[in-house]
């Protein structure tokens, strides 16, 4: 399986994703500079977290206009799996691959801690090693994670089963008190219509090794490798 990690000025989770992916895949992903529109043929594209372009204007807004991102959009539209984590999720909404927008956290604070997530869609290449309803513990680290979309869009996401993860209590209850940032309907991650693009605020790559205090992120990378090696 060949994967590419998009590196922008201000990415800071690119190396973590590289290590997590390498651990599952056994081979190193390509670290691809955002300014280079010639993206090699890959089976998976990851847009990692960080503060691309310093979050100037709006988080992800300037990075979404990077030369490589138009190519990422074209590949996604052809069915190549694209995973956007944190700032990567913000970039995927700003470039139009995913609906809605990530707004300033309702509590105005940067939030950096582990949260509980309920897996809502275990039928995708990103989530096939999880089970529907499973509660996993993954860290968030963001200032703009407050997912917003109009009611029609939210109803469509729900109706088409495109919410991949929701913030929940440790018992799996989706409650206001389990919502760290004010996100609409506790949404932590969503899928595109084709279910080959996932954007999520939490960082699975940060808990993909027991040495780091948890392993709940690892099944995402293991599952991707299983799914994508099988299709080769």
């Amino acid at each position: 399986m060949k994967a590419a990690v998009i590196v922008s000025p201000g990415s800071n989770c690119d190396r973590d994703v590289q290590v997590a992916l390498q651990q599952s895949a056994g081979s190193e992903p390509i670290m691809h500079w955002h300014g280079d529109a010639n993206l090699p043929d890959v089976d998976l594209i990851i847009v990692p977290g960080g503060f691309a372009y310093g979050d100037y204007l709006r988080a992800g807004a300037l990075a979404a206009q990077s030369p490589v991102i138009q190519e990422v959009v074209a590949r996604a539209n052809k069915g190549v799996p694209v995973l956007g984590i944190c700032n990567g999720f913000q970039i995927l909404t700003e470039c139009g691959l995913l609906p809605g927008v990530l707004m300033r956290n309702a509590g105005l604070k940067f939030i950096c801690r582990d949260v509980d997530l309920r897996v809502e869609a275990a039928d995708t290449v990103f989530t096939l090693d999880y089970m529907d309803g499973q509660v996993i513990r993954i860290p968030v680290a963001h200032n703009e994670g407050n997912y917003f979309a109009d009611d029609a869009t939210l109803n469509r996401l729900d109706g088409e089963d495109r919410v991949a993860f929701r913030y929940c209590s440790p018992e799996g209850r989706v409650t206001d008190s389990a919502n760290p940032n004010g996100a609409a309907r506790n949404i932590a991650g969503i899928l595109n219509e084709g279910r080959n693009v996932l954007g999520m605020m939490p960082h699975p790559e940060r808990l993909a090794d027991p040495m780091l205090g948890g392993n709940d992120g690892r099944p995402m990378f293991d599952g991707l490798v299983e799914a994508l090696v099988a299709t080769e």
Partner: protein
Amino acid sequence: MRFVAGCAKHRCMKARILITLKNGVLDPQGKATEQVLAGLGFGGINDVRQGKYIELDLAENNPTNALNAVRAMCEKLLANTVIENYEIDLDE
């Protein structure tokens, strides 16, 4: 058409863009500012909404062209129309 000094020989026009959150979109920064203003004793504030102001110097002296260009910039980059409105003010 009125030209400001220095612009007579060159194409030059200023666009002032005001970006505001749409009605119904929660503005936590505005809320926090409102609370602090109230804490400072400033009464009579019903609501505080925070926005953005962007100024562009354009190498253009046709207002129609300028307006079309700036509108395209707002739609493509400067505003996120999911949550924001924009107003353009041209200085000819």
